[in-house]
């Protein structure tokens, strides 16, 4: 009802009247931020608050902007458009709010991590080091060994399972696998660690922690991710290619190896890289299954093995006599870890772009 009356009153100049100019929100935003900054500057000069507070300025400015723009829109454009502007502001704010922790996190990791991001960090282990110095070579070696082993276990299984789902799977077994792969993606990482620990204490006696157990825990977490991403990629391969191969008399297995896999190899590689990036940062399962140590250990089948995330955790939790040295090492470890994960992500995206399936016609 209100809509009809609104249209009628606007009939005189129906396109231009009753709307705020396009630039109006920006002007209001600038004015509100300036006003808020002025208030805080005055408060700072009058000394009720210690210093100029940038977070407070932006916060008060945004609240003021929301109120002012909604009020103006209500007066000029009516209730419906005012609600629209209100929601637009909220939605944009949500995005900005999500950026805050990301910026803060990246900033602190870089500033706190750089002091110990040196050669010693990458060449020394923590063996018989009490205060300053030392490094994380044992953790880096452990992470590479365990993640590598997990990848060697889970890539063939995951890939073959996805081939089964796409090329062979019909009926109940395929449906069960699809469902339980989905369920498996939701396994809490620490439960995977408990599982690997339980298996190896049943095999080797209680309390045994070794690199292989860590790799097994990571594989449990990695397999469903590999299956999911490879399955999606295999389904993208057009059926015409399969039929063309069959028409030439190619056996099914050769068709999969020579036609389906090469077509989708870029996507599969990307998915595998992303799954490695996901498990390389896992802490809890390795803490449980592989334990922690200060020594360099190259043997997956014997003795505890340190990894980079667990190194960060133990340095943070068990700060020794010189707490700052331990914290610095933790931050440097965190920086290394983030760089590795970002690098894997970047390579994955480059691979996806470089070797995208050449289906163009």
């Amino acid at each position, binding site marked *: 009802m209100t809509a009809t009356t609104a249209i009628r009153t606007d009939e005189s100049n129906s396109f231009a009247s009753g709307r705020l100019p396009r630039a109006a929100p920006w002007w209001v935003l600038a004015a509100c931020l300036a006003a808020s900054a002025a208030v805080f500057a005055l408060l700072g000069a009058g000394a009720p608050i210690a210093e100029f507070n940038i977070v407070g300025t932006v916060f008060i400015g945004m609240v003021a902007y929301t109120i002012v723009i909604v009020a103006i829109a209500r007066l000029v454009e009516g209730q419906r458009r005012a*609600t*629209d502007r209100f929601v*637009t502001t909220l*939605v*944009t704010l949500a*995005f900005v709010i*999500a950026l805050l*922790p*990301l910026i*803060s996190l990246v900033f*602190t*990791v870089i500033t706190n991590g750089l002091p110990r991001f040196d050669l010693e960090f990458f060449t020394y282990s923590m063996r018989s080091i009490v205060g300053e110095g030392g490094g994380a070579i044992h953790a880096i070696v452990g992470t590479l060994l365990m993640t590598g082993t997990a990848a060697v276990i889970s890539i063939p*299984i*995951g890939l*073959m*399972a996805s081939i*089964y789902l796409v090329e*062979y*799977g019909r009926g109940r*077994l395929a449906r*069960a*696998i699809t*469902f*339980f792969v989905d*369920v498996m993606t*939701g*396994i*809490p*990482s*620490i*439960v995977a660690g*408990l599982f690997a620990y*339980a298996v190896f*204490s049943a095999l080797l006696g*209680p*309390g045994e922690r070794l690199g292989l157990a860590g790799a097994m825990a990571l594989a449990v977490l990695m*397999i469903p991710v590999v299956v999911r991403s490879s399955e999606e990629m295999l389904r993208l391969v057009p059926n015409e290619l399969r039929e063309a191969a069959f028409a030439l008399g190619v*056996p*099914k*297995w*050769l068709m*999969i*190896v020579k036609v389906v896999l090469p077509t989708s190899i870029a996507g599969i590689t990307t998915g595998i890289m992303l799954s490695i990036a996901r498990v390389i*940062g*896992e*802490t*809890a399962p390795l*803490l*449980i299954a592989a334990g*922690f140590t200060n020594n360099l250990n190259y043997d997956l089948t014997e003795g505890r093995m340190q990894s980079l*995330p667990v190194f*960060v*955790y133990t340095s*943070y939790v068990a700060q020794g006599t010189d707490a700052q040295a331990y914290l610095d090492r933790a*931050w440097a470890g*965190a920086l290394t*870890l*983030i760089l590795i*994960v*970002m690098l894997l992500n970047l390579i994955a995206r480059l691979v996806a772009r470089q070797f995208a399936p050449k289906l163009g016609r």
Partner: protein
Amino acid sequence: MTALGTPPRIAAKQRPGDRVFAGSAVLAGSLILATLALVAAFLVIQSVPAVTVPADQLSILGGDTFLEYVVPLVFGTVWAALIALVLAVPVSLGIALFISHYAPRRLAEGLGYVIDLLAAVPSVVFGLWGGNVLAPAIQPVYTWLWENLSFIPLFAGPPSGTGRTVLTAGIVLAVMILPIITALCREVFLQTPVLHEEAALALGATRWEMIRMTVLPFGRPGIISAVMLGLGRALGETMAVAMVLSATGVITVNLISSINPSTIAANIALSFPEAYGDNVSVLIATGLVLFAITLVVNAIARVVVNRRKDFSGAN
């Protein structure tokens, strides 16, 4: 399906290569089912001593029965996850809408990638950040809440001096599940039939009215399952909670005091390195409880998603 005149199905010639390949594919698929069954079996077997061994021989229980030990942990797990959901869901819906319907087209993909970056950060780094940066920064807010709102049980205080409360842990968890919920919701929102949106706009709807009438009803099952998946992740998250929360293992809804409930996963991570003998079984049994909870939550989410596939026509 069989129309008149369709030739009878011809069975392909079975070559050895085919048999080996198909066999190994079936094997790999079954191995996944076997793994999941093994996970459940090993956890059950290993956690039997937690209930059969008399409670006074298990030092970790501190005189309680197993049930008395695990209930506060379950409460803490659910409580922290719920706080995270309450904080994360509105924000992620906002971000998903912003990327799918508000941001300029050219920017949208890049902005989505920025949010995905949050998902790539390892949980231990979130823990480090939450404990060292967020907790001290947010402590004054807790003091303020206590001074002004302490009549609400949630803010009964007294405020923690370090800021390492269950609310801080909830905020860190919220940041961690944000990208998951956002990514799924964005996908669903982008699948809204363009004709529905254009029809709403053509009838004179504002952008918000269009979203409320077409995008949100269409995406509701997707939103629900995204929230459930986020809940599953928040329930199982370990390191961020273990490194941020200073827990005492009680049941309380007080968000800002220094006495906080612990979560199952964090409790395992903190107690496991020192546990010995049958105490390990107690921790594995709590892990089994966590496994069961997340299994149920994830299964519900998947059922909702799968049911949606049938009637939406989006796929």
